[in-house]
């Protein structure tokens, strides 16, 4: 079984993200693996360990992604591809999906595992669009993957009203939830091994496509402006006579906050 896993580099959302003139201030930011992709990597590695699957990882854009790809290697991924091209600065989910389609077609994979969404944009579309482009079955928000035989997998998906069990014929695309597993923290052995491995870095031309073909020239969506969420205001504290305070609070709620 050949598995293709996606990995996006995202800004560490634990940090305060500052916006200036409609753009994100880069200073002081740090970038990490998208958390859901970490789950996808872990799921792939588990299939490698338990079912002897061959694992390949693809990361798109982001400039220098060496750190996160090495980390995925250290977790157990075998091959890594990084597609980077100046044309990708404004790429959206459709562009990513097109590139993934190209990679998929070159490699003939049995299963594509992606995180169900990325922490930075929270769109949750890439995996599903990819399935559409490839004409493959797709299940999203997957919380477990079980290999039935060479051609079939059984996945469970967290739906609105309970867990859905779905049998899929391979090849297929699944997007995974963060409750599918607890990603391992790569330690010594993995990290030492990862240092020796190479990453296949390609631009669009090397991949055998072009900016136009993947839709990079005219993305279907474009981020026009970033707006920082309004900072939460501190509460007000009232002290003194209870009757007096109650009257004041009612007055403030009615006239200032206009809740009734």
């Amino acid at each position, binding site marked *: 079984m050949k598995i293709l896993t996606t990995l996006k580099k995202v800004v*560490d959302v*634990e*940090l*305060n993200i500052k916006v200036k003139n409609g753009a994100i201030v880069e200073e*002081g930011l*740090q970038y*990490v693996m998208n958390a859901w992709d970490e789950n996808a990597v872990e799921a792939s590695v588990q299939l490698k360990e338990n079912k002897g699957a061959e694992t390949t990882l693809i990361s798109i854009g982001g400039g220098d992604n060496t750190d996160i790809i090495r980390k995925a290697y250290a977790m157990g991924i075998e091959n890594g591809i990084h597609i980077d091209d100046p044309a990708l600065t404004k790429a959206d989910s459709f562009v990513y999906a097109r590139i993934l389609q190209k990679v998929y077609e070159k490699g003939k994979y049995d299963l594509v595992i992606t995180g169900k969404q990325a922490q930075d944009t929270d769109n949750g579309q890439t995996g599903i669009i990819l399935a559409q482009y490839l004409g493959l079955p797709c299940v999203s928000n997957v919380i477990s993957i079980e290999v039935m035989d060479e051609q079939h997998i059984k996945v469970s998906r967290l739906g609105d009203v309970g867990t859905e069990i779905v049998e899929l014929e391979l090849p297929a695309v699944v997007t995974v939830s963060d409750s599918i597993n*607890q*990603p*391992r*923290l790569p*330690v*010594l*052995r*993995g*990290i*030492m091994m990862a240092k020796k491995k190479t990453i296949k870095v390609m631009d669009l031309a090397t991949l055998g496509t072009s900016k136009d073909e993947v839709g990079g020239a005219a993305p279907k969506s474009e981020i026009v402006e970033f707006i920082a969420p309004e900072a939460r205001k501190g509460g007000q504290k009232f002290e003194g006579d209870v009757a007096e305070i109650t009257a004041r609070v009612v007055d403030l709620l009615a006239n200032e906050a206009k809740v009734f």
Partner: protein
Amino acid sequence: MNPLLMFLLLTVGLTVFGRTMFHKIQLLRALEPTDRANHLKERLMNMVVLAIGQKRLIGRSKERGSGIIHAFIFWGFCVLLIRSLTLYGEGFQEGYSLPFFGGDHLIGYLYVALKDIMEGIVLLMIIFAFFRRAVLKPERLHNTFKAYLVLAMIGILMVSDLLYDGARYNIIQLFNNPGSIHYFNNPQYGSEFLWTPISVGSATLTSGFSADTNITILTIMFWLHISTQLLFLNLLPFGKHFHVITALPNVFLKSLDYPHEKPELLDLEDETAWAEESLGINHIHQLNWKQGLDLYTCTECGRCKEVCPAYTTDKPLNLHDFNDKLKIELLENADNIIKKAKLLATIRQSEDTGQIEKNREERTALNSEKKLIGEVIAEDTLWACTTCRACEEVCPVTIEHVPRIIAMRQGQTLMAEAYPKELNTAMKGIERNGNPWGIGYDKRADWAVGLDIKMMADDSNVDYLLWVGCAGSFDDRSKKVSKSLVGILQKAGISFAILGVEEKCTGDFARKVGNEMLFQMMAKENIETLNNYKVKKIITACPHCLNTLKHDYPQLGGNYEVIHHTEFIDQLVKAGKIKLKQSLAGALTYHDPCYLGRYNNIYDEPRSILQSVSNGVFKELGRHGRESFCCGAGGGRMWMEETIGKRIYLERSEEIVGLKIKNVAVGCPFCLTMIEDGMKELGKEEQIKTMDIAEIVEKNMV
């Protein structure tokens, strides 16, 4: 008496014993190296105080009874060594005495008097010990046949010697010495009996018999004594009584690092090391020889488990079992380990690469098939340890449990990747954002906003760096402690600054859970920052940060004077820079944090501060000072769920509640969290206030 028989007995006894010891020592020599051949004076001092002085046996009030029993048996043995040599001599030549111990020397008389009294005391102690084992049955003791056998043998040694002397007294005094029995080879022989009341007393037991019978009794008792002694000697190496031989060297060779041998600074770039799985302890042959000697020496007295927060709350960690299992595994692999060492010596001398490769393979084939963790020691056992060091503090023979546990965790984390996965979040947190909560590093100094605190980046020309620590920076409860501490420092006019967003977790818990890689990463980054600002003196409110900065960072080139805030506040109070008023109402107690007390010997300063602010009674907890009971958060346990047994923090909190006090002071952010949680869970949050000493001081400053 009978030179031939004596010769035979000694030859057989000592040859067998020699062979056994040769094998035991050979095994130790085949284990990994560790350097203990230094600081002779300090080592001798340890041996005098801890081993000969029996400090940890008689020094602990809780264990004084059994301590005294043991101490006198031990001292009795020491005294009787000279007697034994005399008896061996007597076997060859009647009336033999050691130089200066004969009848023409006062020292000889003094010695027989001492020996006589000691034998009486030892005999009494043996009776107490029997009674204790058979009737009182303390929980910590393993009652085995062998334990009784050893007691019985010591009893036989004492009784036979006393009866021997008694019979001799009768022969000389009652029967005019028909057989010319000497003790001291001198003209006044017999006069030593004036010095030996117990022997003379025991003479009455056989005074009714004839001279011949007394001579027979004397002969039997002599040979019984000699053969019991040689049998005893030969039994010692095969069980817990080996400590009779190994305890003194074990104490002498104990680590002089404070507080125990530091985790080895592993070379993580060494590719052969991880290819051969030689980082940490994964298999029995990876113990160093001192750790082997520790296993020989463990007396299974059980003091360690009695004070262990994990054992006492029903976790599977039982340290004397732990030692015992390792010892069995060590002895089972003894021959292979010795062969491995021989092969290594061959490899080192050989230049033939083909031969070296072959020997290497042979060596690998000799490794124990058992993984230490999982097959000898259960995983839950290994991870239950809070690294509180209570066990090491009470161990009479100074066994170092904690460094060995950390080395085994290194094996699990670095090599086997079989550490508790729940640690991932915290480890990832420090890797990415420099704190175990994983909160954005850019928020590290948010607590300090508006407090007019200098940042090192703006002005590093200050006297002290205030090391805030992750808890003090990110944990809401501990942030209050940081603010209080800043208030005190500002009031005292201290010139200080913080690192702000440049500070990162010291790596304490990473190291304690065996993630040496993460520890070194954090340490290197912090040391670079600190050295960049030429930091000399550091104040911190976190004992874990304190310990790591002070004891672990020098291994990586970070040398600073690190002061805990309680020490610093105490200095400020004593120098009159801050004045306290005794306005803290209600009875008060103090919970000693392990990493402040046992790890860094700071016990008095917090108490001194508390005495100056409290107008209530200061009550000590039952378990305090060196024997303080852990809150349960050390050794990375802060970041693991406690799913087995009773929660350690509840055990401690109940003890605090039982003291009927109004305030409990702590000096560690983890203790603060644990104890306060305990109070909440016990519904005592309102009645008993849990506070850091800095908070108490800030509220009670003039």
